[in-house]
């Protein structure tokens, strides 16, 4: 039992530390939102990639950065309704 508890605690520690670490109850929405947020953060973080996207969008880099960060707030629409 202690082992199970420890595993549980370790998992929780991981989840707290590394955003997006999944668990048994991860929903499809959580997962997708997490992937999209990771992607956007990566686009913003890699300067050549941001420049590439900005060029394609016809915007300046700072605007592209703002748009991508804004997309991280709600990347895949509203969450599904929770059915009790």
């Amino acid at each position, binding site marked *: 039992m202690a082992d199970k508890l420890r595993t549980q605690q370790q998992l929780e520690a991981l989840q707290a530390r590394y955003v997006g670490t999944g668990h048994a109850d991860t929903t499809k929405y959580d997962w997708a939102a997490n992937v999209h947020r990771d992607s956007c953060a990566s686009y913003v*973080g*890699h*300067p050549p990639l941001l420049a*590439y996207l900005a*060029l394609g969008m016809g915007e300046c880099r700072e605007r592209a950065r703002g748009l991508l960060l804004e997309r991280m707030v709600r990347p895949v629409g*509203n969450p599904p309704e929770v059915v009790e």
Partner: protein
Amino acid sequence: MAATSSMFMYSLTIQPPSSITQTILGQFAGTKEQQIVTASGSRLTIHRPDPAQGKITTILSQDLFGIIRTLAAFRLAGSNKDYIIIGSDSGRITIIEYVPSQNRFNRLHLETFGKSGIRRVIPGQYLAVDPKGRACLIASVEKNKLVYVLNRDAQAELTISSPLEAHKAQTLVFALVGLDVGYENPVFAALEVDYTECDQDSTGQAFDDLEKHLVYYELDLGLNHVVRKWTDPVDRTATMLFQVPGGADGPSGVLVCGLDNITYRHSNQDPFRVAIPRRRGATENPERKRYIIAGVMHKMRGAFFFLLQSEDGDMFKVTLEMVEDEAGQPTGEVKKLKIKYFDTVPIATNLCILKSGFLFVASETGNHHFYQFEKLGDDDEETEFDSDLFPVDPTEKYEAIYFHPRGAENVNLVESIDSMNPQLDCKVANLTEEDAPQIYSICGSGARSSFRTLKHGLEVNDIVDSELPYVPSAVWTTKITRGDEYDAYIVLSFNNGTLVLSIGETVEEVTDTGFLSSAPTLAVQQLGEDALIQVHPKGIRHIRADRRVNEWPAPQHRSIVAATTNERQVAVALSSGEIVYFEMDQDGSLAEYDEKREMSGTVTCLSLGEVPEGRVRSQFLAVGCDDSTVRILSLDPDSTLENKSVQALTSAPSALAVMAMADSTSGGSTLYLHIGLYSGVYLRTVLDEVTGELSDTRTRFLGPKPAKLFRVSVKGQASVLALSSRPWLGYSDPQTKGFMLTPLDYVGLEYASNFSSEQCPEGMVGIEGKSLRIFSIDKLGNNLLQQSIPLTYTPRKFVRHPDQPLFYTIEADNNTLSPSTKQRLLNDSNLTNGDAAELPPDEFGYPRAQGHWASCIHIIDPVIAKAVLQQIDLEDNEVAVSIAAVSFSSQDDETFLIVGTGKDVVVAPRSFTAGFIYVYRFLEDGKELEFIHKTKIEEPPQALLGFQGRLLAGVGNELRIYDLGLKQLLRKCQAQVVPNLVVGLQTQGSRIIVSDVQESVVYVVYKFQENRLIAFVDDVIARWTTCSTMVDYETVAGGDKFGNIWLLRCPQKASEEADEDGSGAHLIHERQYLQGAPNRISLMCHFFAQDVPTSIQKTQLVAGGRDVLVWTGLQGTLGIFVPFVSREDVDFFQTLEQHLRSEDAPLAGRDHLIYRGYYAPVKGMIDGDLCERYALLPSDKKQMIAGELDRSVREIERKISDMRTRVAY
């Protein structure tokens, strides 16, 4: 082992990226002078702005082998030196300093805080420092923030604390800045959004109600912890923060910038808001709101102001007005915020205002600009708007404000620094029929885009070009006395005489110099204190200061064939093969050495070195004979004219030069023997100063003519000018001190000499045909010359005319009004005064409109006219997406220009209403285009290619073959070969390589009999292909948009099977493998290049060089991959690389191997840029590595430099 491969390539950068990610300003050298530090790609560069000349020079540029994301400068209280903090992808915070005495960066601290790589929750995206240099905050996009306390210890060394956490889960950071609070506890301000609610609420209400907060984080220095001190909702659209001076200088706080909104915020002040003025004009949408995208705050003498730039490039001056007390003195309370139009400059990533009154604009695209301030917009006629006009809440109604953009009044452009960013396509071709090909590239965006021609060479400043009566054979310059600063005479030798010109205000002939004018000259020299020497075929004329002439006649029936001199020695070679040696004695007369030395063959050239400082003679005489040898003779009094060493050559030497030059191996100066051969080959060998032995020979082919060598001085260093079919300069690189040999961008000279006069202290004089030319070389740092032709819109792709030296570009700008719409607006509107004036788009950009495209086709002549020959604008909101020159066998192999377009294209998510393929006929050798017809298709064709006399088009995920009909293109064959979208096509024979936007490349074979396209090999890994090229029939090299470059090869068996004669039945019926093609590609090489590759091709770069892969990157990078021939070399470089990884670990703390294997492990590649850092190591480390490798330092350096010079620059 996964990392080994049967194929190995050596990666080298020819031109580092020129895009600037971030710029910081500071006194990094610890002097009063400010320097600019820029991050471009993985390179950190420190520049010195020169206020006197209005120029920026690069002092040091270093590759950090890591992605630089943020930079910050800080200074500890009481110090006068700024340190640099780097936020990179290493998961570590790095603090470095610039050491001016050694011209290098020195790492002071490296603290690990997280995983490496660019991740959502690993800090490194944002970096802010306290203005007093007491702390810094490094944050990630989401959640994590770490505060480091910076201090100094008893030895006055910088210390860094362990990190203090200020994390907040599910919180996105949009901007971060250090607040100016004087000497109170450091405070950092962040723009944050907490998305917790919005992730739970399925109605979307929480998202609509979501607020953005301005949050203050205070570092309590006493308690050593961080608290969220204050938080307040701000405008939802805000994305930028600017620090407002505090303490004694101002009210403290921040400017929060969002859509049409600049708000002053602080915890103890009322908010004040101004809108962003909009452009007025017939083509401007009056409803369009702008964002602020860059800005800078500048403090001076108690006052301060902001320059904020909108997304159009307009800069606004923003100031704060304070409430005044009874005495009329400003208090700490803000009264209003004021804004007015300042000037328009290119859209910037960063603006820097220098104390010396300059503005550095690190442009987002195109050249970086360096401006000088003329005034600060204090008393002009621009309307000033203040915050009294606007409600604080941006959702409330307010009157929009407008201004008329105008030419720059406050700043004056003093230098434009070449930048090829973004570089969208590139082709290497030899259009000018020179020895080496040129690089043609399209770069820039919008109206600031350009077509650039790059040529390997040094820029030459032509000073004088004057005609002579006859064709001279040689030229010299000389001083009259040793103490002279400048040359006094130019001596020209003709077939039958000698002409002496004096250098002064004007250059004119003089006759009373004592020079023999009736014979040609072989050498001229200023000897001793005040004498002159003229060597002519019949003797040596020694002209004393009092015009007394001593003549030494050549022995009877013999003449002098070669001569060499320095200020104390003279050596001449007679036609009989004898060498006569003279030395100046105490009383200034020339004394002949008794014995003559007889050489085995006819002497072709001689060289004496300069007399070393503090010595009486040069130790060695180099003698070149027509039996293809060079001998070194001793000039020591004990062993005069004795043989010291011999070197055999491949051809007879035509010129020799013994000279000391700076050397990276020894760190000081080394004596070299430069040899030019009749075959046009140039050799450089090290001449041992004691033993006279020759070692470490390096060879370069200069051109088909015999090489001549001349000692010249460029930028204060001894250099060698080598003349063959074109002139070359051998010098040591100002930064690495490595030896460089670069052609001059100049006419082919026949003879040259150093030249120094009052007007031109460091020049050269040369002769070419009948003309006498004086020129100088002002820049040694840049050996790629650029010429640029301005283009209209962002260039996307280009093709070359199959025979003529012409290029065709397609250009397109998104969200931009097309010329016809613009014209209609200009004609329609009831114009008020001044609105009709159209602004030059290269300074002000084009009028923007959502969903509009402006697109055109250009014909460019980069060789003769150096201009755009014709422009064809596309109408109806169409955008050109692909271009190809295709010859149709149905039209007697006539070549047509094919352009693919899309209508109403939206980039992401991809949508359009139709696609078209335009066909143009070439007229007048391609100088004009005639429209034939256009064919409507379902999707914009992203790739076009000529294929077996027909057109191959990638339409969506289909591959199609079209033939040319009378009214339109006729579809002949089609197949779906890739899963998503065809973006590139390559072909050889009947094999087609199709690149998919997302799923790497697919090999397709076309079966003519059955008229079928059959995919037979595909890849296992998703590669977001941007460019590809066929290296050979089986191998493809390509790049993806994450910055990887790879070489893929199709299995031999599959390749053979695909080409079996007959029908493709066996291919069609072959079983699919895991829902893909029957076979899989194998990976040969993989490398992370950091920059997004935009083109790759297999070509030669230098005359006589091997084929290399040349790739270009979006940020302006030019790189090559050189294939290794021998396994031995691979082993050598692999070991060297390994040693360098540990001995010269990357500055920002990124592991080199992991960096180059960012997305997939590096395979089959050696990083040449790392290997070249060997030359910059301290000599003990060099020795150590050389010992490990069992070779000498020189040998290693030669191997490294050979890898580059054999194939590239």
